[in-house]
C-alpha cells in the first residue's frame, strides 16, 4: 500500500515538475521579451516582414474559417430555434458566439497551425544549423532579432484577423439564413446588430490578442530549445501547434469567465 502510494506520487510528480519547469521557461521568455520591448531595441523592418507573413498570409484561412463557422452555426441554430418559435434569436446567438468564442478561438487555432508551426520550424532549424550561435557570435541577441519582431507582428495582426473572422462569420450566417431559409434580410440584420455591442467585439479582440501572445511565446520557445537535427525540428513544430492549441482552448474558458462580468452583453428589448 505504502509502496503503491510511492509509485503514484513519483508518477505524478514527474509530469507536474516537468509542466512547472516548462511554464517557468515560457514565463522567463515573456519577461525577456518585455525587457527587450522596454529597451526599445526594435527592428521595425523585421516587424514589417513578420506582419506580412502572419497578417497578410493568414487572411484567406481566417476568412474561410470565420465564414463557414458562422454559416454552419446559423444553420443549426435556425433549425432548432424556428422549431421552438424563436427564429428571431438566430442572429443574436450567432453574433454572440462569433464575437465572444468562435471568432477568436478558431482564428487563433488557424494561426497556431500556420504561424506557430512555421515559427518553431524556422527558429528550430536556425538553432540546429548553428545560425542562432552565429547571431550570438556577432553580438546579436536572438531574442531581439527573432522573437520580438514576431511578438509585435502577431499582436498587431491578431485583432485584425479576429475582426475579419467575426465579420465574415456574420455575413455568411446572413447569406445562409436569407438565401436558404427565406428569412427577410432586413429583419435578420436588425436582430443581429441590435444584439451585437462593443463589449462583444472587444471581448473577441482582447481574446484574440491574448491567444496571439500565447502562440508566439510557445512557438518561439519550442524553436529556441530545439535540438537533435531534423527530428528535433519536426518535434518542435508539432509541439508548438499542439501546445498552442491546448493553451488557447484552456485559457479561453478562464478568459470568458473573467471578461464576461467586465464586458457584459448588451440587452436591448424590441
Amino acid at each position, binding site marked *: 500500500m505504502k509502496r503503491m502510494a510511492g509509485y503514484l506520487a513519483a508518477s505524478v510528480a514527474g509530469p507536474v515538475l516537468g509542466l512547472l519547469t516548462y511554464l517557468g521557461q515560457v514565463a522567463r521568455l515573456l519577461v525577456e521579451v518585455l525587457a527587450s520591448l522596454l529597451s526599445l531595441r526594435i527592428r521595425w523592418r523585421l516587424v514589417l516582414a513578420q506582419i506580412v507573413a502572419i497578417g497578410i498570409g493568414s487572411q484567406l484561412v481566417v476568412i474561410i474559417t470565420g465564414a463557414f463557422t458562422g454559416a454552419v452555426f446559423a444553420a443549426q441554430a435556425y433549425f432548432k430555434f424556428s422549431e421552438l418559435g424563436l427564429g428571431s434569436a438566430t442572429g443574436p446567438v450567432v453574433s454572440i458566439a462569433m464575437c465572444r468564442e468562435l471568432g477568436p478561438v478558431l482564428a487563433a487555432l488557424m494561426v497556431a497551425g500556420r504561424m506557430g508551426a512555421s515559427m518553431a520550424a524556422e527558429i528550430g532549424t*536556425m538553432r540546429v544549423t548553428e*545560425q542562432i550561435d*552565429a547571431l*550570438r*557570435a*556577432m*553580438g*546579436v*541577441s536572438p531574442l531581439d532579432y527573432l522573437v520580438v519582431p514576431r511578438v509585435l507582428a502577431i499582436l498587431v495582426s491578431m485583432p485584425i484577423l479576429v475582426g475579419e473572422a467575426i465579420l465574415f462569420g456574420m455575413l455568411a450566417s446572413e447569406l445562409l439564413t436569407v438565401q436558404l431559409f427565406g428569412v427577410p434580410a432586413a429583419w435578420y440584420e436588425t436582430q443581429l446588430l441590435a444584439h451585437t455591442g462593443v463589449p462583444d467585439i472587444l471581448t473577441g479582440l482582447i481574446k484574440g490578442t491574448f491567444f496571439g501572445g500565447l502562440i508566439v511565446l510557445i512557438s518561439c520557445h519550442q524553436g529556441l530549445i530545439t535540438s537533435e537535427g531534423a527530428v528535433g525540428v519536426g518535434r518542435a513544430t508539432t509541439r508548438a501547434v499542439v501546445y498552442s492549441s491546448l493553451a488557447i482552448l484552456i485559457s479561453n474558458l478562464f478568459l470568458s469567465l473573467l471578461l464576461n462580468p467586465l464586458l457584459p452583453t448588451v440587452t436591448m428589448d424590441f
Partner: protein
Amino acid sequence: MSVSDNPGPFFRIEALRQSFDGHPVLRGVSFDVPRGKTTVILGGSGAGKSVLLKHLNGLMRPLAGSVQVEGNDINDLSERDLTPIRRQIGVLFQDGALFDSLTVGENVAFPLREAGDRNEDGIRYRVNEVLELVGLKGQEWKMPGVLSGGMRKRVSLARAIAGRPACMLYDEPTAGLDPILSENITRLIAEMKDELRLTSVVVTHHLGAMRFLADQVLFLKHGEVRYCGPAAGLDDSDDREIREFISADAMGRT
C-alpha cells in the same frame, strides 16, 4: 591600459569542464592562446574540438573552470556584456551557419551592419573585397540554399573576416574543399595572421595545413589535452594516439 597593448595571452583557458547529459566532453582543459599567433587544435572526431571553440567566445558556458579573453574572465558576463568581446572575435562555424533567409551579400554584410556601419558604399566595397579573397567574386546575389558545401564554407569565412576582427576561430576551414581551394584558404589564413597580426585558433584534421599554420599545436583526446607545444614536437611524441593520428594521415595522403 588599452586592450591591444595587453602583453598577456589572448585567451587563457583554465581547467575547463563541460558535459552533456552526464557524459563528460571536456575534462579539465587548460592552455593559453598567444596573441598574434596561430594555435591549431587537432583531435579525432568527437574529441570535443567544436565544443571547446564555442567556449572561447561564451557561446557555451563551462560547468567548471574559466575562460579569460584579454585578461577578463568571461564566465560571469551577461550576453549583453559579451557583445563587445564577441564583435572582435570572428567565427567560422563547422557547417557554415549562413543565414538562409539572406543572400550571400547580406550574410557577409551582416556583421558590418550590426556593428553600426551605415555607409552602404563602404559595406558593398568590403563585401566584394572579402568575397574575392575567398574566390567567390560576383556571387553576392545567390541564396545560401543553392550553394555547394565548399562555397557555403567560404561565404562563411568571408562573413567572419568582413568586420576585421582581432581574433579568428576557424572550425575546420578546409574540410570539404578540393585540394587547390584548401591550399588557397590555408594561405589566406596564414596571410591574415602575418599581415593583420590576427590571433587565430584553427581546428583541423589536415596535418599539412597544421604544419603550415601552427605556431602552437594542441592535441585533444576524450576531452583532455594530450599535447600542447610546437608542431615539431608532435612527431617525437610517444603518446600512442598521437602517433596513430599522424601515421593514419600519412597513409591517407598516398
